[in-house]
């Protein structure tokens, strides 16, 4: 197993280099001029050229790339064209914001999606199964953008039971940055009012983000459970007189769990990369929208930095999925 992990980590480095080269070339080829963006739309040509030299954009492409890689090894991800701040310091703010959203989505999937799948497998045709199908149709058939806006209009606009968006209520000052996750940082500060506020703001956006995954995982769990419940060892367990609860939650679920969980682990990176719509609707201020804005204004360093973070998380989550699979099914070994 250790050899497998080391091999995968080395492979990750190789993939990251490849992604960075590809991304660099794509950004370079995109129309538009980042020096113009930084200098201002009505800047004179000589001002634009001065900015181009400051940003190192006048150098040949391969020199720009090597300089960038060299800086990465020194812990620098470049300077944002838009904000003129180090990209690393910007990512420290935006990545935790997206991560908090993804973490919330994961909790929805694990603690709502999986039990929903189990119950709908146990009670086919009943209310819980119908509800599960509704969630599946909603999550997999409706666009996130549409559901998010409708939920916002109804739960905030009509019922006023959840906030419209944002990470905190208007006028509240964010907690000092420890992890960047407002919920956790509020706990570290022992400000439970702030924690409550941050937690409630997280509920709806994380649920909307989770919805497609939740639908997928609940369906997968349901199918896995149905398959496992028909296996011989389950019949034997029942014949031996074990309680139905024990049969389902101890014996059946453990075996049915492996497929959904490994699939879900692989989806974490995709969740992180897919937050842009939810962040836009709920004014969340995370990595997705940062990268989107970076593409629009040709903020190369920001796009590179943000994309490399997502790539890294994606590969780590895949590795984690493989390790988890091994743990859940002892027959698997690498």
């Amino acid at each position: 197993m250790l050899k497998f992990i080391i091999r995968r980590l080395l492979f990750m480095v190789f993939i990251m280099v490849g992604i960075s080269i590809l991304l660099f070339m794509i950004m370079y080829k995109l129309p538009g001029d980042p020096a113009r963006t930084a200098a201002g739309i009505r800047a004179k040509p000589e001002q634009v050229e001065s900015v181009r030299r400051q940003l190192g954009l006048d150098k040949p492409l391969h020199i720009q790339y090597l300089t960038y890689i060299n800086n990465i090894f020194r812990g620098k991800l470049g300077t944002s064209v838009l904000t003129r701040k180090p990209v690393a310091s910007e990512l420290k703010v935006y990545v935790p914001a997206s991560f908090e959203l993804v973490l919330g989505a994961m909790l929805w999937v694990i603690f709502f999606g999986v039990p929903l799948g189990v119950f709908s497998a146990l009670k086919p045709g009943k209310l819980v199964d119908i509800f599960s199908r509704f969630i599946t149709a909603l999550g997999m058939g409706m666009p996130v953008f549409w559901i998010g806006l409708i939920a916002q209009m109804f739960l905030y606009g009509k019922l006023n039971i959840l906030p419209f968006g944002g990470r905190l209520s208007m006028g509240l000052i964010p907690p000092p940055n420890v992890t960047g996750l407002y919920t956790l940082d509020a706990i570290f500060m022992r400000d439970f009012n702030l924690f409550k506020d941050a937690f409630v703001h997280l509920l709806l956006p994380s649920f909307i983000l989770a919805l497609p995954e939740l639908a997928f995982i609940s369906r997968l769990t349901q199918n896995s459970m149905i398959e496992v419940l028909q296996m011989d060892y389950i019949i034997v367990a029942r014949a031996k007189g074990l309680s139905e609860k024990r049969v389902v939650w101890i014996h059946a679920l453990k075996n049915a769990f492996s497929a959904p969980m490994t699939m879900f682990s692989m989806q974490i990176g995709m969740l992180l990369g897919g937050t842009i719509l939810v962040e836009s609707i709920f004014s969340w201020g995370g990595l997705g929208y940062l990268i989107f804005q970076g593409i629009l204004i040709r903020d190369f360093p920001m796009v590179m930095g943000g994309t490399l973070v997502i790539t890294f998380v994606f590969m780590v989550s895949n590795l984690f999925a493989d390790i988890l699979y091994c743990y859940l099914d002892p027959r698997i070994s690498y």
Partner: protein
Amino acid sequence: MKKLLYILVMLMLIIVFCFVNYVFASADQDFSNTLVIAENEYPSSFDSVFADNTTVERTMALSYEALLRFNPSTNELEPWIASKWSTLENGKVFTFTLNQNITFHDGTDLTASDVKFTFDRMREIDQGIAYEFGSLYRVEVVDDYTVKFFLSEASIPFIKIIPKMYIISEEGVKANISDNDYAMTYLANHELGSGPYVLTSFAPEQQAIFSKYDNYWKGWEGNHVEKVIWQYIKESSTQRLLLEKGDVDIIMDPSPDDLNAFRDNSDIKLAEGTTFIEDYFHLRTTHKPLDDIRVRKALALAYDYDAHIAIVLGGSGTQAQGPISSSMIFHNNTLPITHQDMAKAKALLAEAGYPNGGFTFKLAYTGIGEQDQRTAVLFQSNLAELGITVDLMGMTWDYMFDMEQDENSEPDIYVEHFYSNSADPDSGLRDIYHSESRGTGSNASWYQNPKVDELLDSGIVEMDLVKREMDYKEIQKIIAEDVPSIFISNPKYIIAMRNYVNGYRYNPVNHECIFAYDIYLDEKP
């Protein structure tokens, strides 16, 4: 799995507890004298050098001040940090005398040294608003409260750009320089101004909170809001929802479709401002068949201006009359206003040798935002009636700007706007129609006329206001006759606000800025 169930139950209890507390606790915050503004874009910086960016300038209006301010009621400049000013040597030297009781938020006094430092720093950085001050070559401190500006060449309009240069604390900048960055990194999240409000909290993409500066030199007697919260909300539909519920007081980005709903809402009022903005189609005069003036005139006659005002602008704006905004000084109001006339357009095309159209134009517009897209689609449908095909090219503004700089680029027509940074017609006419602007991107039509160049070059140094007015009116007449652009509209600037908001006044020089110090609130329901 029992543990899983326990965790699930705990989570459900936390959710219920938190949201019940939230619903009751959220009423505890006191917003009675707080102005809450919804805006879709957060500022990339609080550095006064980048005041050419409207999103940045909005925060300038709260935390910084300039030497002078433009008064839209009188159309004149009025004293601000400077109590008086004078001009010498035919517009080459400007002297400003400063008020003496002004302090920055960092506690330091605002003196002539800070003014000199602000302009020297701007010229060294050479970005942002610096392009407007190209003729300024030296700033001299005469004494603590007197400063002189020396221009390399006389420029009558120079004084009118002064309201865009916000004075920054010299000591504050020097204390926060890192890696020779002119404190730009520090200013990405902090401000160093002397204005009525201090930035107390900034969470990018979330909100910026400004609280009143107790030592503000104009004092706090009378009615003023004490706190301003900028809430960054991307979606205009969400902004609308918040305004209708009363959770924000002003929204900056109402869509044209929302305006009618707001007009029917008795709790909301619209504030309209007359801008210096003009919308255009720039016609690439170096591309065939647009090099033929008859074809350009035919296109100008083909556009449905009434539909543009009603649908694209949502009724908020007027048709343009010539190449500059009708509200700008020296506007030539004798110029004809073009109305759609398809018969005349067809006749002109026939005269030019295109009785049934039969050619294709590429039309470039910025693809983000509905207005330009609607403008482009409307023109496409109008020209189809003349047998002219229009291929639409939606793109980002910087890509479009690159194309405007390149004479051989594909697009034949550009949907464009001009936002003037000053209350003087020179910048708009010079940027867009002087032959030296060809290749800079602003002169997208690649227009040139030696007479226009001559009049612009003499007008910028003309001290006799009557002569200057005549010259600028002549410039507008020549350009209107040459039709390098179709002059579409002068849009009004509209924001929506709750009825209890008072004191807001639009300033066309500080476009989209809210001078919150002038605003006061009636009791909020």
